[in-house]
C-alpha cells in the first residue's frame, strides 16, 4: 500500500473556524494541518483530544478522529486511548489554564509515565474563553477582570514544570513562526513517548502583544535564543552567548568568553539539569528566552510497556480460559456422584494457569 498523498485541505473540516479574527490559534491550526499532510500517514490513524478553552475547539477543525472533552482532562482521556490503542497517533491540544491549572495533575502524570502523547499547549497567558481572567502563566502584577489591582499569583514556567515532571521531550515554539512550529511538531512526532510543546500564542483580544519581545521585528533579534542540538548557544546576531557557571546558565557577551566556554546544546543529555537551567533563563517571554527542543531523551513509553506485559502474559499463560478462571479457587461438586451432596474433592487450583 502506498502512502496517501495529502494537502492541507485534506485535514480541514467543513466546520466554520470560530476564533477571534487575528487569533494566534489560526496560525497554529495551519501549521498542524500542513504538518499532518506532510507525513503521508492515513488520517484515520490520528486522534486529537482537547479539554476546554479557546484552544480546545481545535479538534473540530481537523479532519481526523477527535474529541472535545472536559476541562483539564484531555491527558487522562488520551492516556486511556493511547494505552488501549498504541497503533494510533494521539495528540492533546490544551491551553495554559486547561493544562496547568485545572488539569495540572493529569499533565504531570502523563509526562512522568511517558505515555505516547503529543501534548501541544497554547500558552497565551490569559483565560480567553471566559473573557479575560489571569491564568497560571500570567505575570505577577497583571491587571485583569479578576485581578483589577494586579495578580499576586506567581506564574508557572511551563517548560520548567514539564522538565520537573521528568518529561522526555520538551520544546517551545511561537505561533507566528510556522516553520519552527512544524519542525517542533516533526521532532515530537518522531519521539517515542510523551512530547510537550509550549506554543507562545498571541491572544489579540485579551492579552495582545504578550510575546512582542520574541515576535516583534525590533525586539526578537535581541531576545530569541534558538536552541539547536549540537550547536553552541548564541543569539543576537552572535553577540550574545550562553555559558554554564556553577551549574547555572547565564547570558554573556560572546566577546567576553573563550568560544570553547559557550554551552553546546545537547538535547539528549540524560540528566535534565542543564535543560532546566536553560528554561530558567527567562520566566515568561521577557528578555532573552530560549525556543526549540530543551530535552529529547529515550525512556520506555507507558503504553508500549503495558501492552508488552499483556503480550508476555499471553505468551506465558496462554490466552485466558474463563471457565478455568472461575474454577481456580477450589470447587466442590453436588450431584449424583455424591448422593449425600457431600464434597467429592477439589478441582481447579494449581492445574489452572490463572492461579497466581
Amino acid at each position, binding site marked *: 500500500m502506498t502512502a496517501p498523498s495529502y494537502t492541507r485541505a485534506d485535514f480541514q473540516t467543513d466546520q466554520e473556524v470560530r476564533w477571534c479574527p487575528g487569533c494566534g490559534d489560526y496560525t497554529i491550526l495551519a501549521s498542524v494541518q500542513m504538518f499532518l499532510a506532510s507525513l503521508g500517514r492515513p488520517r484515520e*490513524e*490520528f*486522534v486529537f483530544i482537547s479539554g476546554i478553552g479557546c484552544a480546545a475547539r481545535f479538534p473540530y477543525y481537523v479532519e481526523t478522529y477527535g474529541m*472535545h472533552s472536559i476541562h483539564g482532562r484531555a491527558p487522562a482521556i488520551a*492516556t*486511556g486511548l493511547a494505552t488501549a490503542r498504541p497503533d494510533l497517533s494521539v495528540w492533546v491540544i490544551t491551553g495554559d489554564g486547561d493544562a496547568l491549572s485545572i488539569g495540572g495533575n493529569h499533565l504531570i502524570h502523563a509526562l512522568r509515565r511517558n505515555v505516547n502523547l503529543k501534548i501541544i499547549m497554547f500558552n497565551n497567558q490569559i483565560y480567553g474563553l471566559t473573557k479575560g481572567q489571569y491564568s497560571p502563566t500570567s505575570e505577577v502584577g497583571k491587571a485583569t477582570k479578576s485581578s483589577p489591582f494586579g495578580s499576586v499569583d506567581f506564574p508557572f514556567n511551563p517548560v520548567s514544570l514539564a522538565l520537573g515532571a521528568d518529561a522526555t521531550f520538551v520544546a517551545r515554539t511561537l505561533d507566528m513562526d510556522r516553520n519552527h512550529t512544524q519542525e517542533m511538531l516533526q521532532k515530537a512526532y518522531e519521539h517515542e513517548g510523551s512530547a510537550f510543546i509550549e506554543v507562545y500564542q498571541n491572544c489579540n483580544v485579551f492579552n495582545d502583544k504578550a510575546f512582542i519581545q520574541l515576535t516583534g521585528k525590533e525586539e526578537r533579534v535581541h531576545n530569541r535564543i534558538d536552541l539547536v542540538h549540537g550547536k553552541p548557544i548564541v543569539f543576537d546576531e552572535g553577540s550574545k552567548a550562553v555559558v554554564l557557571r556553577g551549574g547555572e546558565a547565564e547570558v554573556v557577551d560572546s566577546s567576553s568568553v573563550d568560544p570553547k566556554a559557550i554551552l553546546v546544546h545537547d538535547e539528549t543529555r540524560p540528566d535534565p539539569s542543564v535543560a532546566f537551567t536553560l528554561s530558567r533563563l527567562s520566566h515568561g517571554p521577557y528578555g532573552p528566552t530560549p525556543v526549540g527542543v530543551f530535552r529529547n531523551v529515550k525512556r520506555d513509553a507507558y503504553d508500549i510497556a503495558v501492552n508488552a506485559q499483556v503480550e508476555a502474559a499471553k505468551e*506465558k499463560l496462554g490466552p*485466558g480460559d474463563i471457565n478455568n478462571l472461575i474454577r481456580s479457587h477450589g470447587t*466442590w461438586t*453436588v450431584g449424583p456422584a455424591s448422593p449425600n451432596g457431600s464434597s467429592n474433592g477439589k478441582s481447579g487450583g494449581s492445574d489452572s494457569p490463572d492461579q497466581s
Partner: protein
Amino acid sequence: MADDIATADPSTTPTEELDQLVIRFAGDSGDGMQLAGNRFTDASALFGNDLATLPSFPAEIRAPAGTLPGVSSFQVQIADFDILTAGDAPDCLVAMNPAALMKNFKDLRQGGTLIVNTDAFDERNLAKAGYDSNPLEDDSLIGYRVIQAPMDELTKEAVKDTGVSGRNVLRSKNFFALGLMAWLFHRPTEPTIEWVEKKFAKKPEVAAANKAAFQAGYTFGVATEATKNTFAVKPAALEEGTYTNVNGNTALAWGLIAASQKANLPLFYGTYPITPASDVLHELSRHKNFGVRTFQAEDEIAGVGSAIGAAFAGNLAVTGSSGPGIALKSEGISLCFMLELPMIVINVQRGGPSTGLPTKPEQSDLLFSLYGRHGEAPLPVLAIASPSDAFEMAIEAARLAIKYMTPVMLLSDNQIANGSEPWLLPNVDEIPPIEVRFATKANGPDGTFLPYMRNIDTFARPWAVPGTPGLEHRIGGLEKESISGNVSYDPNNHQLMTDTRAWKVANIANDIPDVEVDGDEDGDAEILVLGWGSTFGTIRAAARRARMDGKKVATAHLRHLNPLPNNLGDVLRSYDKILIPEMNTGQLLKVIRAEFLIDAAGLNKVAGEPFKVTEINEKIMEMV
C-alpha cells in the same frame, strides 16, 4: 501432616448434629482473623455446607493493639440447607483479646460457646478494653460454654522447631485458633493444610509454623476434651452442580472478564485505589493474559477519563470506585453520557457521606446514582444482589452499555464486595454473546459519516473507532446536532437531543426482565417486601421466617433500578402493603412513591452493619 491430624481421634468427645451454625472470629487487626475466617469458610465450602460470610474490619490498617477500634472480625454461617445470610447472632465466638470480647460478646447467643486466648487477658489489655475486672474470673460469663486456651504459650511451644523467630512466632496463633475450631466443628483439615503449603511455598518456615500451630490447636481440643461435646453440620442438599466459594469483588472482576470475552472486546479498567473497591483492580490486574489492561490513574477523575478514552478506542471500558470517588467522576460520567459511548461505572458503596465509614456497608448512593449529575443525564442503574450475582450483573451492565451506547452504573456495596457465598458455577460458553457492531462504512449522503444517526430500534448511535478509514469524526461535550453530530446551539435541537437521550435510556425497560415475586404462589400474600442490592438474602430469610409463623409474605428484588421493570407498578399495586427495607434513610422508597404514587413503608438502617433477619422479620410481623 494432614494425615496426622485426621487420625487424631476426636471421637472420645460426643458430637451434636446441628442444621446451622454461626461462628465469629474476633481479634486485633493484626491477629489474622480475616484469614482464619476465610480458611474456616473454604474448608466448610469444600465440605459441602451452604454458607454466607460477613467480614468486618476497621478503617485503620493497624489501630493501636488491644484497643476497641482495632478489633477486626469475620462471621460465617454454615448450614445443611440453603441459607441466605451470615446469621444474626453467633453461636460461637472466638475472642483473641479482651477488646474483641468486649466488642462482640453482646452479640453471642445466650448459652453460646466462647473461645478465648487467656494469654491476652492481662491487666493492660483488660484496661485498654475497658474491663474493670477480668471477665474470665468474675461472673460475667456464667451461662456460656467457655474454652480457655493459653494460645500465645501453646503457639510458641508448637512452632519452636520450625525456624520462625521474633515477631513471626506469635503470628501463627490464628492457626492455633483455627485448629481448635476445626476440632470443635468437625471441619476437614486437608484444605487448610494444602492452602498453607501453597501460600507459603516460598517461606517453608512460615508454612511449617502455621501447620504446627494448626495441629497444636486441633490437638488441644482432643487432649483436653475442651467441651463436653463437639458439633457437626452436614453438607447441604444444594442444587446439583459444581460450586466455588466467591466474594463479590472477585465475582465482579471475573464477570467483567467474561463480558469482555462475550463481546470480544479488550477489557480496560481505569481506576484509583479506594476501599472497598480496590480488590476489583487487584483481581483484574492479575489476568493480563485475558487481554485485560488495568490503569491505576493519578486520581478518580483520570480513572474515568482514561475509561472514556478506552471506550472511544473500542474497548470494553470500565471505571470503578466507591461513593467519594464516584462524586469526583461525576463530570466525566456526564461527558460519557453526552458522547454516547459505552462504559461501566462500578460503585462499591460504603458508609457516607465523605469518608464516612469506609469499611462498612451502606446503600446510600442510590439517589446519587440515579440523579447525581449536572444537566439531564439519566443513566441505566443496576444493582448486584449478592456476591455471586456480581458475575451475571457485570455481563448485564456490559450488554446494556454496548447495545445502547451509554454509561451504565453498577452498584455493589461493602457487604457484597467482601462477603462470600457458594456459587453454582455456570458454563460460560453457554452465556449468550454480546453483539458489537462497529461502524465500518459511511452512513450518510456522498460517503459522509453521521455519528449521531441512530439505530431505529435502540436509538443507539454508531460506534466508529479511530483507525477506521473514512469515518473520521469529532465528538465532544458541546450539544450536538441530531444526526450530523456537529456542534449546535439550536433551541429545538437541544430539546430533541435531551428527549432522545432520555427516551433511549427509558426504552431499556423493554429489554430487561420483569421483576419476579417470590413466596406468593397462591397469590394471597398480604404484604410485599421490596428490596434492592445486598439486602436480598436478609429480606428472603425474614420473609421465610414469617411464613413459618403462618404469615402470607411475598418478596421481590430489583436488579434494575433505572429504568425500572415494566411490570413493577402492577406488581406493587396488587399488594395492600409494601415494605422497603434499605440501608439508607429511604431512597428507593422515595423513588417508588414518586414513580407509582404508592404509600410504601420504609425500614431504614444506617448503622454501618447489615440488617439482621430479626429486624426485618419483626417489621413484617408488625405490619401483618
